[in-house]
């Protein structure tokens, strides 16, 4: 299996050096990428704050816990969604739902950590997020812009953890604005002259410190940052290059634009894009809050799936939509729902995920137990398997502890 070795070699090269910037490195990486049959990239639609499963992907019409929330039929026979997700309902034949996800973490920060890394917070090691693992393990196919991107991040964007800060997601905000920090404040000529002048200062500092200064990696990082600034691939962030009708489909919201930018980024070879839609923490007025947010989520999620399918890239892209936990089945006195990590829903699509399927069933009476329970980390094992990564392979932490990329079990029922 010579191609496997080459792939591994390229993955290492992509992660650690500039080999991917050479024409040969790029050509080899592209060849290896073509051979891949597994999905190539991941889009995480992050529902910050923890969305109510009952008002989104797991309605229980006619029960006490529904608190009035009804259900709509979808393109997938027998699968219902909560009202407000009509556009997504038309795409349900491409979406799988896991309605029995559970974790032990009912606190926002700990819940985010668990759902983003597949591990509970642990004082001895900071685990890498799903996107960091994907970028670390899959080769770089000549991508000059960051391969792990977080659009509209909240306070806990996906991080590289033990893999290093270079695997942290690159944070950008509403795609209608310019990408931060990639445009010089001075004309190009003046900027290039500054870069030239920098060499004079660098050479003075290197005197007597030669190898030690090389070891700082400063020069290398500067060069890569400089290359990024002039990269044509930066246009992928610019959603204004899409037609007005496409932009309209995604919705005139930061999240909608974020989803469109995610699709454009995936097109140029970015491995993982996280797009955040926050505000789901509905301790009061749950129904009003979720109705408003669904107005943003529905067109964006549906347009993303439709767009990817039309471009024939849905099969190469895993889309995962989930938050840090679900919400209590019973409404509280303020008409809100509180934190509920015991069973909630994740939606997955693309990248070999079998659409129109449902795994697990939550308790219609609102109990903690559900049928066919799946742990949060099973989502990671599933996505990693879908992108062709051996989830059981281990990493080693700086203090010498080894841990698997995911300790979960892939949810084979939704993998095609």
């Amino acid at each position: 299996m010579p191609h496997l070795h080459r792939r591994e070699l390229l993955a290492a090269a992509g992660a650690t050096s500039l080999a991917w910037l050479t024409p040969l490195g790029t050509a080899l990486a592209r060849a290896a990428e073509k051979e891949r049959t597994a999905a190539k990239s991941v889009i995480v639609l992050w529902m910050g704050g923890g969305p109510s499963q009952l008002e989104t992907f797991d309605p229980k019409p006619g029960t006490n816990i529904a608190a009035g929330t009804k259900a709509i039929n979808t393109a997938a026979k027998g699968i219902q969604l909560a009202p407000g997700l009509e556009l997504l309902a038309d795409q349900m034949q491409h979406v799988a739902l896991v309605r029995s996800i559970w974790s032990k973490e009912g606190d926002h920060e700990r819940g985010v950590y668990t759902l983003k890394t597949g591990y509970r917070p642990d004082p001895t090691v900071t685990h890498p997020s799903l996107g960091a693992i994907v970028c670390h393990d899959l080769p770089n196919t000549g991508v000059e812009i960051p391969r792990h991107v977080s659009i509209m991040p909240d306070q806990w964007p996906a991080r590289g953890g033990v893999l290093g800060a270079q695997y942290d997601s690159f944070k950008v905000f509403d795609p209608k604005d310019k990408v931060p920090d990639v445009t010089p404040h001075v004309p190009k000529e003046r900027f290039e002259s500054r870069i030239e002048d920098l060499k004079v200062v660098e050479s003075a500092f290197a005197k007597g410190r030669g190898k030690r200064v090389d070891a700082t990696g400063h020069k290398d990082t500067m060069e890569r940052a400089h290359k990024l600034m002039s990269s044509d691939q930066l246009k992928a962030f610019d959603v204004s290059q899409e037609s007005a009708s496409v932009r309209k489909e995604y919705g005139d919201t930061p999240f909608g634009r974020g989803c469109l930018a995610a699709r454009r980024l995936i097109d140029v070879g970015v491995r993982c894009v996280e797009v955040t839609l926050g505000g789901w923490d509905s301790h009061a007025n749950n129904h009003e809050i979720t109705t408003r947010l669904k107005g943003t989520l529905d067109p964006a999620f549906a347009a993303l799936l439709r767009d990817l399918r039309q471009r024939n890239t849905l099969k190469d892209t895993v889309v995962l939509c989930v938050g840090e936990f679900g919400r209590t089945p019973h409404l509280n006195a303020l008409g809100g729902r509180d934190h509920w990590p015991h069973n909630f829903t994740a939606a997955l699509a693309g990248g070999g995920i079998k659409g129109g399927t449902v795994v697990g069933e939550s308790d219609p009476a609102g109990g903690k137990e559900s049928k066919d329970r799946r742990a949060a980390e099973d989502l990671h094992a599933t996505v990693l398997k879908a992108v062709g990564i051996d989830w059981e392979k281990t990493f080693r932490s700086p203090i010498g502890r080894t841990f698997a990329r995911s300790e979960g079990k892939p949810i084979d029922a939704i993998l095609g």
Partner: protein
Amino acid sequence: MWGRNLLFLAFILVIALAMRASLFPLSTASRKVNFDPTPTEKDDFRAVVSKVDQSFREEWANKELQPAARADDLAVARRLSLALTGSVPSLEEIRQFEEQPPEKRLDGWANHLLHDRRYADYFAGRLARAFVGPEDGPLIAYRKRRFIAWLSDELKQNTSYAKLVEQMISAQGLNTDKPAVNFIAATFDENRKGPDAEKLAIRVTRAFLGLRIDCAQCHDHFLEPAWKQTHFQALAAFFGQTKHSVTNITDTNQGEYKFEDRVSGGTHQIAPAVPFLPELLPARGTRRERLASWVTDPANKYFARATVNRVWAMMTGRPLLRRVEAQTLAEMSDEKIPPALRILATDFASHEHDLRRLILLIASTEVFRLDSAAEFDITDAHDEIWAVFPLTRLRPEQVIGSVIQSASVKTINQQSHIFVRLARYFNEKDFVKRYGDAADDEFERAHGTIPQRLLMMNGDLVDGKAKDELLSASTQIAMFAPTDAAAVETAYLTVLTRRPTPKESNHFAAKLANTTGDERKRRLADLYWVLFNATEQSWNH
């Protein structure tokens, strides 16, 4: 009419003179740096420094390695300023430093910084990372601010470090009234509605004893056979009777601590006990008071050793041991630790855990004043035994603190206008958020990242500081430096705390030659940008 015009002209003239004057020594008494080397001149102090120096020299001789030469005084002054205040020295301070007699000025400078409010604030913030964690979530932000403000006040008074730690571990009361309790309050666990005893056991062992016992939280420790899971949980049991209601931390003196066995399942009850040196644990007091006494007992050698190791790392960028936190007891044993750590820890414990003295001692050692460059080829072996000064990445707040300080020729400190200080506070916070902070081991050796470089090259804040705006240091230099070479030198001193080499001076002076007005200001802004983006700006050296 004429009178008003004249008054206006006079006003402009005064401002111009003041700006020009700020490039050169200032004579206002209140802005004078007090270079008092007295504490470093005492015999017992010098004796400790000599012992430490001797121990390193023996090591260099044993390994047959030549040490680097002594660093330039300004380079050492920069290290001190970065370590103790989080930014480079101001031009105002550099000018005064250079007026001092060379033999004592570094001692005087270190002592001055240790009495400056900036030291108390900065060191409190750094230490708090270890004490209450680097997180800054909305729930704990307030508690953390109260805690740091308290710690800063205590450092300003040079309260014994042991006393500080005792308060953190054992204090009871409202978190507004007794800010030390925020050490406990910061671990508030939403699920248990109380302090997280396991997290506290981890914090106490890591932050105060420099030991990573936490693997034993779920199972017996893999690397240290002396640490069983029961040792860890018995340590956590010291916090088992602590309650957290609204903002009040109290001990109830009842109830037993129970822990969840994450591996084998089940819940077990366990009584408090210490994992080593049980003879130091007093019989009386609340559980937390007993633990506090055990941790800070001068005979508990781990306490002093861990502190010296951490403070050494905060001063030089690298711990004396391999890590700030050891994973086995052997790593901290007499046989394994370098003699310098033993000497400094013994002195620290026998001087009532006096942090100021410890910092002055470290600052006075030969190693602290070695060059990071050498005429010979520097190998890993040189680095290993401190025969050269280490090259380490600055923390984000040091990078931006230096950028902000470099944009002003005057020192930004307690005397600065409240707007200047507020601007610095918010600028720094915003920058650190964007630059990214080390989540776990802040002394881990790591490269910078591309987003960090982009932020430095193109970020609004850094660019704003380099800009040719009125009142920025670069503009003042462009307008008032008497010659091109003097302008370049002043920019170098302000940003990099060194003079340019002749080659650098010629290169940049040529760029300024025959320029005036806006063009000159732009060229100076370009030079500032270049210096902000140089390796040496964001590395300690």
